[in-house]
């Protein structure tokens, strides 16, 4: 008689629930997971190494491509690290804009997460509803930076440009016309701040909608309550950050504990869970969306009242305006130097982290005084989370793997870097 062996299965890299290119090798006893072994590296693009070979500013765009659903938060960590070494501090308005866009990004990320989490557990509707809202925020990204995703909007010393006075309107097409077009453009009549305000006012209802579909749904609860429970002690030991840590009941949020930008001046709460299971993490993230909308509203109020510069007037770091370049030789030289050689950052090293939507996103920057970084190391929250996969998955069933990947909010761009 042959020996009964466990069933080994490749979960990914091509798999609808693998969130990119996760290769998870599962050892199954029937449907029960005995061992889950995540293999990473299929999306490795050597971002850290690439950054060593080009001037500081050129790598901001790479940061967008790390965690490609929370773009500006990644930029924020990198840009702040450079500012730290350069010892420049952005004007106040720029900091408020960054605070606002960090929160816009958080909503973007959490919408993506709630959609894909629901889809992984089979609830299709939430996915498409979340993407409907996401589209509006993508338009905000596009209006402010020119691209929908990879914004490169934050620059050392501020942000690339001030918020537009006019929100671009949707053009008429065969499919979008008449009443529907009017409805879409109703929010877009004023400035971008008007648009974001209209969006956030509406957004609270949208979050309520998602909750109607999921929070009290029996099947949803059966699929998430008690799945992948992590104790607070263990969560800290595993290096969890962000909602993964808060879901376990540890009240740790860099925006409160080590405030940066204008988080000290805005009012918001940190939601925490109690059981540390998928359901608690779900509740934490949903509440975070509401808190983000709250922060955005406070930022809008401040930004409306206080116009001003959005980037430092230090031509060694930030370029002069196009106008100045037309009739000032020195400005032209500054521009040329800045966009070819870049700037030299004083010798030293720094670690700066921000509360990205997925957790602590950190940037460790070493400069040897040249115009290129000597070493950049990026701390991606997802990497630590994924490392706990085996511990969280052991003893659960195959279907719970999808729930776990979703709850960890895995994005391979940042894990593989």
């Amino acid at each position, binding site marked *: 008689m042959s020996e009964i062996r466990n*069933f080994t*299965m*490749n979960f990914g890299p091509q*798999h*609808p*629930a693998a969130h990119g290119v996760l290769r998870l090798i599962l050892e199954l006893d029937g*449907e029960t997971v005995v061992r889950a072994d995540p293999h990473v590296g299929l999306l490795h693009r050597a971002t850290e190494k690439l950054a060593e070979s080009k001037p500081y500013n050129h790598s901001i765009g790479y940061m967008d491509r790390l965690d490609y659903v929370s773009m500006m938060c990644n930029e924020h960590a990198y840009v702040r690290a450079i500012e730290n070494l350069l010892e420049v501090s952005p004007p106040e308005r720029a900091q408020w804009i960054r605070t606002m866009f960090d929160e816009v990004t958080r909503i973007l990320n959490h919408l993506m997460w709630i959609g894909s989490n*629901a*889809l*992984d*557990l*089979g*609830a*299709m*509707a939430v996915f*498409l*509803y979340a993407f*409907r809202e996401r589209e509006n925020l993508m338009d905000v990204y596009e209006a402010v930076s020119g691209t929908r995703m990879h914004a490169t909007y934050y620059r050392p010393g501020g942000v690339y440009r001030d918020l537009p006075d006019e929100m671009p309107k949707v053009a008429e097409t065969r*499919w979008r016309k008449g009443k529907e077009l009017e409805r879409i453009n109703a929010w877009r009549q004023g400035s971008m701040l008007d648009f974001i305000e209209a969006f956030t006012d509406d957004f609270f209802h949208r979050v309520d909608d998602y909750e109607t*579909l*999921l929070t009290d*749904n029996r*099947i*949803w609860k*059966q*699929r998430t309550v008690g799945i992948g429970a992590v104790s607070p002690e263990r969560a800290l030991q595993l290096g969890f950050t962000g909602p993964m840590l808060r879901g376990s009941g540890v009240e740790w949020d860099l925006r409160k504990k080590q405030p940066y930008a204008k988080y000290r001046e805005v009012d918001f709460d940190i939601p925490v869970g109690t059981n540390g299971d998928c359901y608690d993490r779900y509740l934490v993230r949903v509440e975070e969306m509401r808190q983000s909308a709250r922060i955005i509203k406070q930022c809008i109020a401040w930004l409306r009242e206080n116009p001003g510069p959005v980037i430092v007037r230090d031509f060694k770091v930030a370029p002069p305006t196009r106008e100045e370049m037309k009739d000032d030789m020195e400005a032209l030289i500054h521009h040329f130097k800045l966009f070819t050689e870049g700037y030299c950052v004083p010798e030293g090293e720094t670690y700066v982290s921000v509360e990205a939507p997925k957790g602590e996103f950190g940037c460790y920057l070493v400069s040897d005084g040249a115009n290129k970084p000597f070493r950049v190391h990026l701390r991606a929250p997802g990497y630590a989370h994924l490392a706990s996969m085996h511990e969280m998955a052991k003893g659960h*069933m*195959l*279907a*719970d*793997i*999808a729930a776990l990947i979703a709850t960890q909010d895995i994005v391979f761009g940042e894990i593989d870097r």
Partner: protein
Amino acid sequence: MIDQLLTLIWTMTKIMIIILPVTIAVAYYTYFERKVLGYMHSRRGPNRVGPLGLLQPFADVFKMLFKELIVPTNANKFLFLLAPLLSLAPALAAWAVVPFDDWLVLADVDAGLLLILALTSMGVYGILLGGWASNSKYALIGGLRAAAQTVSYEIAMGFALVGVIVLAGTLNLTAIVEAQSGNIFTWYWLPLLPLFVIYFVSGVAETNRAPFDVAEGESEIVAGFHVEYSGAGFAVFFLAEYANMILISALASLLFMGGWLSPFSGIPVVGDTFLGEGGVHWFLLKTAVFCFLFLWFRATFPRYRYDQIMRLGWKVFIPITIVWIMVAGVFRVMGWFGG
């Protein structure tokens, strides 16, 4: 000889008369599904092929038929190709005993309900063999899940039907519908309400549809038992699944909702007009409503986990049905409903 030949031709014609509309109904059910899901998801669904996308099902059929039929290495070729047919044949054969009206039925046999139960149970062989013959781990898991699930829900479903049989006192589907005649409150949904709900939910589980679609389990085992199928093989599985869904809907309307009987009959004023007349249109309408429920479930519910489905089937549905069969027996003895 000529007589036999004529009988054969006449039977074949009758079969075609049933199979063709069913096939077309399946084609447009897929279209309907995509439209309904689309609007429930705030998008539009297919709208490019033909006016309102109405030719989309045909475009899909042609696409499927012209695609290469890939047989995986080391797959059992015979079983791999046989499996889709094994799942389609019973799904279509069951239609033989489905009465559309009191005169419109291909085979008015006395054991009609039993035949349907037997045939729908056969469908699982196609799924199981398809999953096993594919020589793929995902497909194997899908096949095993489907087998376990279908067998479990078969029991709950069978018990739910026993309630109907107890009240109607017959296995003939036409007679079961006629036993319900009267008005909307003499239909069996009312005395057998728990069985009715269980029957329909079991039907959803039996056809492996959301929220019980673990056999396909998109986000867990990719496409489950038919992950290795392409082109025509996939299309046949698809056809079988949708034919089964329509069959379950048709049976739900026959057994619990009075089939072709009019909901207005027996009601004063309205019942005396043409609305009070029974007819095939009522049957189609009721079936369409149940078909719509399938889609509604799919659009909104998350997916159950495999063990939770089993628990629901064995620990919740089967006990309830057993209790309610006794209640139905009491109804029968007291002569409150039917009989």
